[in-house]
């Protein structure tokens, strides 16, 4: 029972991946749809998508770091 933090870390990591994948997936879908609606604005849309995409990815990476901390520091 003293190794239960591994279990918690693994579940946490799975949830992080689900959350990040859902968020980024929705984003990509919205971007693709809006480019399909107006192909001439493709550059602007790509530019606008970049920033929130990496912020979301940053959140996921931050959370993974904390999970790693749980595993390494007990």
């Amino acid at each position, binding site marked *: 029972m003293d*190794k239960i933090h591994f279990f918690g870390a693994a579940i946490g990591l799975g949830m992080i991946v689900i959350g990040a994948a859902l968020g980024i997936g929705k984003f990509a879908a919205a971007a693709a749809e809006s480019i399909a609606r107006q192909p001439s604005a493709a550059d602007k849309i790509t*530019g606008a998508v*970049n*920033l929130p995409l*990496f912020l979301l*990815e*940053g959140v996921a*990476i*931050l959370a*993974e*770091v904390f999970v790693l901390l749980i595993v390494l520091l007990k």
Partner: protein
Amino acid sequence: MTTMFVQEMVQERAAEGHAGGFDAGEVIIHHVANSSLEDPLIRLPTLLGIDFSVTKHVFMLWLVAAIVFIVVTWAVRRYLKQDRLIPSGFMNGLEAVVEFVRDQIVQPNVGQKWVSTWAPLVLTLFVFILGANAIGLIPIFDVIGLLDHYVLHTAEDSFVKHLLRGGTTATANFNVTAALATITFGAIIVAGSKAHGFVTHWKNIVPHGLHPLIYVLLIPIEVMGMFVRPFALTMRLAANMTGGHIAILAILSFVFLFAELAGRAVAGIGVGMLVSVPLAVGISGLEIIIVLVQAYVFTLLTAVFIGMAIHVHH
């Protein structure tokens, strides 16, 4: 029942690691982290309680800075000495990078008036972070280690032996990225002060004209936000760089784990050829993309935060 079995296996594995078998965790951490503070490359004195000895990541910082500085200034000086300013070869690429950063990253966020003030800082950050990330991907020190092991046989305490301890990615160390984020933090304050005046910059952090009680809640949140953004920059860059290396090393350590599990080296080599090396090559390709993207993201966010301090949107 199952938990007890798993517990037994984990304890067995841990004991194995301690008994001189292959401890994957320790090897991986050793390959990614900085060299030990007690055992630095160059021992320097301790000033004001801060030990200034040169560890491996400090050495990599200097190396990357020297390489970037020499390459860029040499290319630009050679280009400027020409009669007609037509860039060619490396200078062409450098000019494309500079134009990309200035026109796509700095100018949309900061506005035409402040581009020449902030473009140098943003460009420096971009080129330095790109250089530090990329040089971390090149296993030159491992090659030097091979050379040392088979050819040179330097002493146990030599500079060359010290070069083999620890990882080469300077930006994988969160202290390095924290320093870069501190530069961003300072730049935000300087940008706001230059654009609006020192006191007005601090007043601009919260929107004007709200009910006084809301300010009690809003000011701590905004101040916290001011600190959280550079912290996120720090952790994003450091974690991305460390994570990539850990992934590659973990996959390559399958070779050794399987060799130990099966008791013979052929098993390890087989697994290596079929699974580990192709997967590691794939992840290294992903690493190259991540290197570029993380440099771009750090620079983009710096430009965005500077722009937010200059054009207050509320």
